[in-house]
C-alpha cells in the first residue's frame, strides 16, 4: 500500500504514518514548550512580575531548560505503589491527547486525516484520559492522589456531557455546501446546502462568511466552561488543587513521567483551542470569506488559526490569573443542574431549526436569551447561598457534643 504526502507519490503507508506521527510529536512538543513559556510570561504580567528572563534571550529557553532538568531527574516510584498501574498511567493520559491531533484542521487541505466523523472521534478520544487519571490516582498509593483521581473522574464525566452537547448543537445545524470537500473546485452556491456535519473541515468551511459564535453564543460559552473543566484549568482545577490535594494524581510522580502529565495537559489545552477555533471561530475559513476557488495563502490561514487558538489560550490563562477554584459539589451541581438543562433546551431548539428549516437567526436570539439565563442563574446562586446541608449540621452537632 502506498499513499501521498507532501506531494510525493507512492510513499509506503508505514513510512507515511511514521512521518505524520513524528510531525505531530515534534510540533506538539515545540508548541507546548512555547505555551509553557507564554503562560509563565502572561501570568507574570498579570501579577506585576517579569516571569522568566534569565535563560536565553528574554527567557525564551526556560522551557527547554526545564525539560532537560525533568528528563535528568530520577524517576521515583513509591514502594507501595502498584507498579503497572503507576507506570502505565502517564501513557494513558498522554496518548489520547496525541490521538486528538489527527483531526485538527490546521489549514485548508493540510491535516493529518480528514475524518467524516471527526468531531465524534475527538470526543471519544479525549474522554479516554480519565482512565489514566484514575490509574495515576489509584496506583500511587497516596490518599491525596486517590482523592484527586476520584475528583478527576467525577469532573471529567460530568463535563463531558455539556461538551459533547455543545459540539452536537453546532454540528447538527451547520450549513455545509452540498458538494463536499472532495468535490474540489466546484464552488457551492448558498442555496445548495445541507445541514449537519461531523466533519471538522466542513464545519470550518461552512463558516466562511459568518462564524458559528454569532449563531451559537450560549453554546460557545458552555463549550468554554466545559473545556476548562475537561482541561482541569482554573476555576475547575479541583483534581489537582494545589492548596488541597497538592497536585492530586501527580503527587507521587517525578522526572520524565511527571513531565508527560505536564506535556499532556498543555497539549490538551492546545488541541482544545484548535477545536474551539475550528468549531466556533471559523478556523482557516473566516474572515477570508471564500473557500476553494482562490484560497488565501496557507500562511495566512495558519496565522488565522493560530490567532484564534491563541485568543482561547490567552483567555484560559487570564481566567487562571483571576478567579478562585470552585468546590467539588458546586462544580458537579453547576454541570448537572445548570449547564446540562440549558444545553438540552438549546439542542431542542436546534433540532426544530433543523427539521423545519427555520433561519439561523432564531438560534442567535435563543442563544442570547440562554446567556442571560445563565448569568441570572449564577447571580442568583451567589446572592442567595445555599444553607448548610442538614447532614453537615448533624455532623457538627455530633462533634460538639
Amino acid at each position, binding site marked *: 500500500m502506498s499513499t501521498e504526502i507532501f506531494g510525493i507519490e507512492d510513499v509506503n503507508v508505514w513510512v507515511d504514518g511514521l512521518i505524520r506521527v513524528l510531525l505531530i510529536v515534534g510540533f506538539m512538543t515545540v508548541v507546548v514548550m512555547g505555551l509553557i513559556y507564554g503562560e509563565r510570561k502572561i501570568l507574570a504580567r498579570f501579577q506585576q512580575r517579569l516571569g522568566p528572563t534569565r535563560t536565553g534571550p528574554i527567557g525564551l529557553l526556560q522551557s527547554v531548560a526545564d525539560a532537560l532538568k525533568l528528563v535528568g531527574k530520577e524517576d521515583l516510584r513509591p514502594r507501595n505503589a502498584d507498579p503497572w498501574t503507576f507506570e502505565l498511567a502517564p501513557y494513558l493520559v498522554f496518548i489520547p491527547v496525541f490521538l486528538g491531533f489527527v483531526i485538527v484542521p490546521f489549514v485548508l487541505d493540510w491535516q493529518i486525516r480528514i475524518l467524516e466523523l471527526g468531531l465524534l472521534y475527538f470526543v471519544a478520544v479525549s474522554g479516554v484520559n480519565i482512565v489514566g487519571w484514575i490509574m495515576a490516582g489509584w496506583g500511587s498509593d497516596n490518599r491525596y492522589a486517590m482523592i484527586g483521581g476520584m475528583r478527576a473522574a467525577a469532573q471529567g464525566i460530568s463535563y463531558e456531557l455539556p461538551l459533547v452537547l455543545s459540539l452536537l448543537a453546532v454540528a447538527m445545524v451547520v450549513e455545509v455546501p452540498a458538494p463536499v470537500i472532495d468535490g474540489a473546485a466546484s464552488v457551492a452556491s448558498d442555496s445548495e446546502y445541507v445541514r449537519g456535519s461531523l466533519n471538522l473541515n466542513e464545519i470550518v468551511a461552512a463558516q466562511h462568511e459568518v462564524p458559528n459564535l454569532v449563531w451559537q453564543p450560549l453554546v460557545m460559552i458552555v463549550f468554554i466552561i466545559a473545556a476548562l473543566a475537561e482541561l482541569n484549568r482554573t476555576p475547575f482545577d479541583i483534581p489537582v*488543587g494545589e*492548596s488541597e490535594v497538592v497536585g492530586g494524581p501527580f503527587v507521587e510522580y517525578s522526572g520524565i513521567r511527571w513531565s508527560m502529565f505536564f506535556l499532556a495537559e498543555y497539549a490538551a489545552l492546545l488541541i482544545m483551542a484548535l477545536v474551539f477555533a475550528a468549531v466556533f471561530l471559523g478556523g482557516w475559513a473566516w474572515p477570508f470569506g471564500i473557500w476553494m476557488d482562490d484560497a488565501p495563502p496557507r500562511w495566512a490561514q495558519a496565522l488565522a488559526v493560530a490567532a484564534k487558538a491563541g485568543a482561547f489560550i490567552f483567555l484560559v490563562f487570564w481566567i487562571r490569573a483571576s*478567579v*478562585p477554584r470552585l468546590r*467539588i*459539589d458546586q462544580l458537579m451541581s453547576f454541570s448537572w443542574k445548570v449547564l446540562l438543562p440549558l444545553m438540552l433546551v438549546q439542542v431542542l431548539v436546534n433540532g426544530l431549526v433543523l427539521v423545519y428549516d427555520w433561519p439561523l437567526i432564531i438560534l442567535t436570539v435563543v442563544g442570547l436569551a440562554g446567556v442571560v439565563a445563565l448569568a441570572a442563574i449564577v447571580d442568583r446562586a451567589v446572592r442567595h447561598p445555599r444553607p448548610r446541608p442538614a*447532614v453537615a449540621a*448533624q455532623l457538627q452537632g455530633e462533634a460538639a457534643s
Partner: protein
Amino acid sequence: MVVDAPTPSEAGDFETQDLLINVGPQHPSTHGVFRMVLEIDGEVVKDLVPYIGYLHRGAEKLCENFDFRQGIGYMDRTEYLAAHNAELSYVMAVEALAEIEVPERAQWIRMILCELNRISSHFMFLGAFGVDVGVFGTPFIYAWREREAVIDLFEEISGDRMMYAYFRPGGLAWEVPVNFEERVREVLASSRQGVKDFDGLLTENEIFIARTKNVGVISAEDAIEIGMSGPSLRASGVPLDLRKTEPYMYYDQLEFEPITAEGGDVFDRYLVRLKEISQSIDLIEQCLERLEAGPIMAEKMPRMLRLPEGEAYMRTEAPRGEYGIYMVSKGGNKPHRVKVRSACLSNLQALKQMSVGQYVADAIIILGSIDIVLSEVDR
C-alpha cells in the same frame, strides 16, 4: 452531590470505610508546620484532629533566663508577621510593673508602627487566603507588593525586616528617620490602592463568594466560649476590640469603631480584615496629625532594669487578636515567669467545630481564614 448520598443503612450491606488523611506538617496550605488529621467520608469532613507543637522553641522558658530587655527579641520571634504588636505587649507589661511613664512621641510612633504592622499582617493574610481559595498567585503577589512597602519602611526605621526589637521599655530604641512622616504617607497611599485592588479582585467575585459564604460558620456565643479574639471573633458580631474596650496608649483619643460582621463565616472573616486595613490607614493618619517632636525615651532609665515584685497581664490588640503577656516578677533583673497568651492558639481551637460537616476544600479555607501564625501558636 456527596452530602445527599445514602447513609450506610440505606445502602444495604455495602460496607464503607472513612478515609483518614493527614494534612501537614508539610503541606502548602497549613501556613507553616500545622498538622491536622481529617477523617473524611467522600469529600465531607467527619472529624478533624489538630496537632501543634512542631515549632515549640520554649520562648517562655528562655525569657526567664534573660533580662527584661533581652526578652524583646523572643517576642519578635513568636509573632513574626506582626512583631511590633508582640513587642508592644511585652514592653508595656514591663512598663506597667516598673511604673515607667513613656513620653508622648514614643507612644504615637508605637501606635503608628503597630497599625502599619497590622496592615502588613492583614495583607499577608489576604495573599495567603487568595492562594487557599485557589487563585493562582495573583492575590499573593498583590499582597506581597503592599507588605513589601511596609516592611521597607520598617527596615529604614529599625534596621530589620522582620525581627525589629525597636520598642524598648520606656520608649523606642532610637529616633525615627527624618522623613518618617512623608514615608508613612507614601506607604499609606500604596496600601490604600492595595485595598482597592483586593476589593476588585476577590470581594465581588462570584466564585469567591460561593466558596466562602456560609462556610465555617461560628456563632458569637461559641466564639466567646472558645476564647477566640481579634478579627475572627469580630466577624461573628462581637465588637471586642481591645483598642476600644480597654484603650491603651492613646487609642482613646482616636475616632474609630470596631469593625464587625454578622455572619461569622469565612467571607466575613475576610471582609473584616480587609476593612481593618482601611481602618488602620485612617488611624495612622489621625496619629500623624497628633505626632509632635519630643523625647522618645523615658528619663532616668537605668542601664539594667530591676523590677519590683508584682505581676501584670498586659494585653493588646494584635492583628490576629488578643496578644497578652502575663509577666510575674519576683524582683531582680529577670522575669520570674513570662506567659504569652497567643491569639492564634485560642482561635485555632475553633477549627474543629467550624470544619466538621464541611468539605475538604472548605477545611482548608477555614484554616486559612483563622489566619494562624504557627510560631505564635507554639511559641
